[in-house]
């Protein structure tokens, strides 16, 4: 009898511990007094976090029945991993921002997201915010919209015009042959400087390809898709052209993929991808970097014979998602909050002003309400103008593996001079098609 009691006691202890480890809240998010609490994870970026905290407070004053807890997405080790861990652990928030199309595809594939287009009032947001065209390419393969894009950064390349001028390059190069020519002049004048100095060039991490390969590929292919559904549809000629261009830069000793601190800002490199979020950092850390004085931003360079003025680029666009694990009350409160935020242009203006991230709207370059932002930071006009040329990332749930192959099989090897462009492209294609099967 005593033995049985001991065993029961031990088992009770073990299951108590296990229950404690795996406790899952069954809270609907609504308290007895009818207040619905939303957990909103904002981007781990101080300006975005501050914006959403302010907006949430404003909303709470007009809607006392909703409480919005805004906190930054933890980056342990990445924001994506934190979100996955939260979902797996049953502690997912109601909504998060800063979700890319690729990551949303992963989450949607796992049934973790609410299809926003199925929620009443979603189309009102799209219409009122004037984003009908912008949201079109965000439609997923299953016909649903899982993400409400918040901002869209048409990624541009920055050029250190001051160093280029010293090297005898007076015009920003726009085609591949012009870039190679500029590299030759740069190396002749400054053997220690590089055209493109960036450790990421040799790093296979998937998202890093958005800011090198895809910028160049979208320009070279005129925005041709890379993956469509579960098919590889990459433009081989454009892809090989891109890899050959990078290979030629390497041959001219124009690439530096070693670890180096802020090479563009410090003048080690004269060319790099620049997102609009960079300018607030530069204003603080590198006030000497002034638009049109010592740097310029342009669309990506294109193969000879193409029009560089209308080159396509990569759209670093992120948006808001609502999680399927949230209660219906929380989901409804979340969509009402989003509706309230985007029913008034001044909230988008405030977002643009505080973060430098162009709102994902059709009229960001034409609407007068954004004029003060462009007057304050003129370089942002280039980003606004480029929005129609920006192609969002693929929506394949395996985007991480697929984009890793681009680096591992082709781009990184080309940067290190380990493979020729055609073989790199073929190996990459084979690996991607194998993964898609």
């Amino acid at each position, binding site marked *: 009898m005593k033995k049985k009691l001991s065993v029961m006691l031990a088992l009770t202890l073990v299951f108590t511990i296990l229950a404690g480890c795996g406790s899952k809240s069954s809270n609907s998010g609504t308290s007895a007094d009818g207040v619905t609490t939303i957990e909103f994870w904002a981007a781990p970026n101080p300006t975005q976090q501050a914006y959403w905290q302010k907006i949430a407070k404003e909303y709470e004053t007009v809607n006392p029945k909703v409480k919005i807890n805004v906190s930054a997405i933890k980056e342990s080790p990445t924001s994506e991993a934190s979100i996955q861990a939260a979902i797996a652990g049953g502690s997912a928030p109601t909504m998060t921002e800063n979700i890319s199309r690729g990551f949303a595809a992963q989450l949607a594939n*796992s049934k973790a997201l609410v299809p926003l287009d199925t929620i009443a009032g979603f189309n009102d947001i799209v219409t009122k915010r004037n984003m009908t065209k912008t949201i079109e390419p965000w439609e997923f393969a299953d016909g649903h919209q899982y993400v409400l894009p918040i901002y869209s950064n048409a990624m541009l390349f920055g050029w250190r015009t001051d160093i280029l001028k010293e090297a005898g390059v007076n015009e920003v190069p726009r085609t591949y042959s012009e870039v190679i020519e500029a590299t030759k002049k740069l190396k002749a004048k400054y053997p220690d400087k590089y055209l493109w100095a960036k450790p990421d060039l040799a790093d296979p991490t998937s998202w890093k390809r958005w800011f090198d390969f895809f910028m160049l590929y979208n320009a070279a292919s005129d925005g041709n898709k890379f993956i469509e559904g579960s098919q590889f549809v990459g433009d081989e000629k454009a892809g090989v052209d891109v890899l050959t261009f990078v290979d030629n830069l390497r041959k001219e000793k124009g690439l530096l993929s070693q670890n180096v601190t802020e090479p563009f800002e410090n003048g080690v490199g004269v060319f790099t991808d620049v997102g609009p979020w960079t300018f607030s950092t530069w204003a603080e850390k590198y006030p000497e970097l002034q638009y049109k004085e010592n740097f310029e931003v342009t669309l990506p360079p294109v193969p000879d014979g193409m029009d560089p003025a209308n080159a396509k680029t990569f759209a670093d666009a992120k948006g808001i998602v609502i999680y399927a694990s949230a209660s219906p009350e929380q989901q409804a409160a979340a969509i009402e909050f989003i509706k309230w935020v985007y029913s008034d242009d001044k909230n988008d203006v405030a977002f643009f002003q505080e973060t430098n991230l162009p709102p994902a709207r059709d009229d960001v370059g034409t609407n007068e309400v954004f004029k003060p932002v462009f007057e304050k930071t003129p370089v942002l006009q280039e980003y606004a103008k480029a929005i129609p040329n920006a192609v969002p990332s693929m929506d394949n749930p395996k985007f991480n593996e697929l984009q890793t192959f681009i680096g591992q099989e082709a781009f990184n090897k080309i940067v290190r001079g380990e493979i020729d462009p055609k073989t790199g492209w073929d190996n990459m294609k084979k690996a991607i098609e194998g993964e898609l099967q």
Partner: protein
Amino acid sequence: MIEKNNNRLGWLFASPYLIFSTVFFLGPLIWSLYLSFTNWDLISPTYDFVGFKNFTKALGTPGVRSAFWVTYKFMIVFVPIVTAMSLFVAVIVKGLPKLKTVFLIGFFLPYLSSGVVASLIVKGFLSHTSPVQTFLRDRLGLDIDWLGGSFSALFVVAMIMAWKFTGYYALILTSGLESIDQEVYEAAAIDGVKDSQRFWKITLPLLYPAIYTTLILSFGATFGIFTEVYQLTGGGPNYATNTWQMEIYSQAFKNLQAGYASAIAIMAAVATFISIFVIRKILEMWGKRNGWV
């Protein structure tokens, strides 16, 4: 009756460890084994059983193949270096007239330091514009991409590991050295053993149990390399530093393939178990052949 009570007392005292191991080791191991036969992606509410598909897929991928071989490459570089360094530190510290403990603690401190911080410091140290690299380039004409070369990247990670573990292993070896009776050396001296033979003929054989321990620990450590690789190379270049842990992490948390990652984890566990078993046997044979055990 006394024996029965002693048994109960034994179980009672062992129960915290047993419960801890059950909850945090045995449970996850069984769960991992179960997951390895599924296609669960960590967050989806549903998943399917896929039999041995994850295992067969893993065998054919360059990531898993590299993880297997990279571990042994790390062993070849890391184990001799860390063993030599820790032995050197232990011998030096033992010979110190005083402040032995202070020096040992000093050498032990890297073991307690954060791998992330150490990796970031090394990253800065090897940066293209760092004073060291600038000196090598400008004065010696050496432009080395430490983290971009297959062997140099592996070597850098192995050296960080060696720096971290040297003090820990030196502590074990120092205690081994301290346990060698001084009279043995005196007797050997009377028998005509030269100073140059002392280490090889007396110290090393009598230190064998401690060396055996540090060797097993250092071989085992190569199967758990993650932080340094994650921070410095991400497993590259070309999988040159892609360890088991790195591959498991990438598949589980980047590619969201928890089932597949579990299969790799099981394969890693099997590889670790077999490797350590074989290494143990070799070390025991080495000891027996020389008459040290």
